């Protein structure tokens, strides 16, 4: 039994616990915290696979930026409300049972396949230098296109929020300033 396996077992359990909390918690804040736990555990898995940069970006973007935004929205809008437990889709439970069964089957089938594994221990693929070489060398144009796309989305969401029916909404201008640059920094990364 090597330490890597111990770390994996601990954080796999944590990821599962987080996922269960996300679905089962009555209070949306607890759900958000469950999702956070799962995301941080995923970052640990990336570290175990020598993808350090991806791990840090996972924490920085998902745990740091996206989840904080989620938490803000949940806390400031629906603090006291509990979710309605009425089931709106007909035959919801049997459908879910079939889908879950299918997913478990898929996981088992995937486990039987021999995957091509990157030869570990020679050169780690996930280092910052390798990713930079790929991103700014081989895939420069698609990368720039993605930046443009994300910037357009950020500007578009601002335009939708600020200009309603041709009239500029002054009250929206006085709102929280942190939303826009968060989206922009996501694009620049």
């Amino acid at each position, binding site marked *: 039994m*090597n*330490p*890597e396996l111990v770390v994996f077992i601990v954080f796999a359990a944590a990821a599962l616990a987080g996922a269960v909390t996300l679905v089962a918690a009555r*209070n949306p*804040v*607890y759900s958000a*915290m469950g999702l*956070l736990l799962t995301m941080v555990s995923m970052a640990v898995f990336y570290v175990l696979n020598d993808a*350090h*940069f991806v791990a*840090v*970006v996972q*924490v*920085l973007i998902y*745990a*740091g*930026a996206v989840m*904080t935004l989620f*938490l*803000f929205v949940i*806390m*400031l809008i629906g*603090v006291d409300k509990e979710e309605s437990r009425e089931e709106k889709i007909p035959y919801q439970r049997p459908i879910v049972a079939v889908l879950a069964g299918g997913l478990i089957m898929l996981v088992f089938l995937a486990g039987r396949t021999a995957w091509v594994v990157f030869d570990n221990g020679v050169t780690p693929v996930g*280092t*910052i230098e390798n990713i930079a070489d790929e991103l700014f060398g081989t895939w420069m144009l698609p990368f720039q296109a993605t930046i443009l796309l994300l910037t357009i989305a950020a500007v578009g969401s601002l335009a939708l929020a600020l200009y309603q029916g041709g009239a500029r909404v002054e009250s929206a201008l006085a709102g*929280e*300033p*942190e939303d826009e*640059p*968060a989206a922009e*920094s996501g694009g620049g990364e």
Partner: protein
Amino acid sequence: MSGWELFFEAAIKAVAVFALVLVTVIILVWFERKVVADMQNRLGPMRAGPWGILQTIADGVKLIFKEPVVPRKVEYALYMVAPIAALVPAILIFMVIPIGEPFTLGDRVINLAGADLNIGLLYILAMSSVAVYAVVLAGWASGSKYPLLGSVRASAQMISYEAAMGLALVPVVMFTGTTSMSKIVDAQAGDFLGFLGVWNIILIPSFIIFFISGVAETNRAPFDLVEAENEIVGGYHTEYSGFRFALFFLAEYANIFNISAITVTLFLGGWHGPNFGAPDWIAWALPIFWFMAKSFMLVFVFVWIRASLPRMRYDQLMAFGWKKLIPVSLLWIVLSSVAIAVRRLGLPWT
């Protein structure tokens, strides 16, 4: 090298870092109280130990033995988690800061840092973005309006200044060509004109922007609107008492030391310093001494700022962050990247 050997090394380092953070905070709190007292023409703590040096320990013992009051309207689980969530990122950040020269033990090189990560700087940014959770959760879980207001303020402030902080670090990474803390320190080895250190102080706009956003990030004066007593009582930790309050307090001071230590590592040469040809039995400790001395110098600046500047208004704080610091750091990124490109590749027309 077996996995378990690595594991034990990591465990020993983790315990050592934890102990170092605690001891540093104890000294730091005393240091701040004495310096502020001096600046206000008072004596400060004098009773516990010589010059009151045991005052922090006395306060800590008092806080531990105090009754931990839990208000009735709290969200219990999150209320309990929040103080821990405040302290953990602070200690995790300190893990990657090299505090001294690496030494060899047997056939292994041991870095005087908890972990010498290849992505140290990004890791620090990631951890400081996780630190927001403690504030948000503490404010919300307290079930009371002043903590909630304080936590909304604090998190808005931390998120805003994190952007400026990250942007200030870009020129450093471009200049040294690495994000590893130990390699950044190595890049600042050697001297200039025989006595001046070759530090990254050449990136002085980054240094200033980073330090200002560091002060804001730790919610210290003049950016301490989070605990503006006259408006929102004590901020997000109003409903905490006893040891749980002590954890928030510990986290705040650990973060002050972290910001100072990171600034020293990035801009002021880390543990590099003259050793005056000292004999070996002194020379091994000198890097640690230089690192601590430089860090405490910056801690002094923290205290100095606190003692001399009045608190900003909330709109001033936001305007300063978004309309001044971030544009200036973007401009500086452009300028410094041009300068670095010219230095590496030569002028475009040659």
